[in-house]
């Protein structure tokens, strides 16, 4: 502490220049390193509530689970309904109940991984809390951030929520079997998306009809093999 007795205490400004989320960012970096070393490919699924994260995840776990060791952590404010639903695929699933918190952070993810040996996993999916705002700020150490938009949400969602689109690696359009029924204008959607995030890769899927699912699974498999080639995994 500066200033002994008798000294004049002068007002002053001290520069700090620290990222407010540096604790989360540091933990996320640590997690990312651990994931890479363990050879586990981690996908963070973000979307508004009801865009179809859980449906896509259930189908993804079922398909990948035939050939890979897959696991998921799912975030919700309350209930473990999603975890119960996802467990039917046979995958390891843990529910993160956040209470009132509207996003997952790196500490919550880490706390829910403790029971698992990361080396035994090939894929880990993190289903974020349904929210297109808050999850944007929190790095979870993921390899891929996928933002989902359902055709029922209209075409201008990307324009309304730039920060999350901006931090996403890939966009997935869901429920495309309903495209006609809801009058979804593909071109307007793509224009809005490319405005906010030029060049972002887009996939279109329908979990119900299976359309586009092969391409989504292939993207995940390719990315997984790219990761494990760079840091070969010692299999037990």
């Amino acid at each position: 502490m500066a200033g002994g007795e008798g000294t004049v205490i002068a007002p002053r400004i001290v520069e700090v220049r620290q990222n407010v989320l540096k604790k989360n960012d540091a933990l996320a970096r640590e997690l990312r390193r651990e994931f890479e070393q363990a050879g586990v490919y981690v996908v963070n699924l973000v979307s508004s509530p009801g865009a179809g994260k859980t449906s896509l995840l259930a189908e993804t776990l079922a398909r990948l689970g035939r050939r890979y060791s897959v696991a998921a952590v799912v975030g919700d404010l309350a209930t473990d309904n999603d975890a119960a639903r996802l467990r039917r695929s046979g995958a390891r699933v843990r529910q993160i109940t956040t209470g009132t918190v509207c996003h997952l952070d790196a500490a919550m993810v880490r706390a829910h991984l403790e029971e698992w040996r990361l080396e035994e996993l090939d894929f880990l999916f993190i289903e974020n809390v349904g929210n297109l705002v808050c999850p944007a700020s929190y790095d979870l150490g993921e390899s891929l951030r996928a933002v989902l938009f359902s055709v029922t949400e209209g075409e201008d969602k990307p324009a309304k929520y730039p920060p999350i689109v901006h931090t996403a690696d890939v966009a997935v359009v869901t429920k495309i079997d309903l495209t006609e029924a809801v009058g979804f204008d593909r071109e307007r959607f793509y224009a809005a998306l490319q405005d906010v995030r030029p060049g972002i890769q887009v996939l279109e899927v329908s979990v119900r009809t299976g359309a586009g699912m092969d391409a989504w699974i292939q993207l995940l498999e390719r990315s997984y093999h790219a990761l494990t080639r760079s840091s070969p995994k010692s299999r037990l």
Partner: protein
Amino acid sequence: MHEVSIAQNLVELALQAASEKGIRVVTAVHVRLGALSGVARDVLEFAFDVVVEGTPLAGAKLVIEEVPVKVFCQHCGEERPLAEPFRMRCPACARPAEKVVAGREIELHALEGAG
């Protein structure tokens, strides 16, 4: 509404910095907030006032400097300011410019105080 979490992180960081820099009474906390940070300014102000209560920062003012979005245009080789609604195109040549060089900040910039 993750502004409460952000405010908690901010207060924690500010208290730590104040102690390291030897500031006994913090009168103002200066924050730089990017337009693409995803943090709402007024909500953060409200959350800050709630979170500081009962801490040594109680009564400190939150001063927010908004940081506009700036992109780097590869074609022009220049950094350019971007206005809302944040179409990621160079405002000069209209080509896609996705590299954000400013506007994502959630930064504790400075502390004002005495001691």
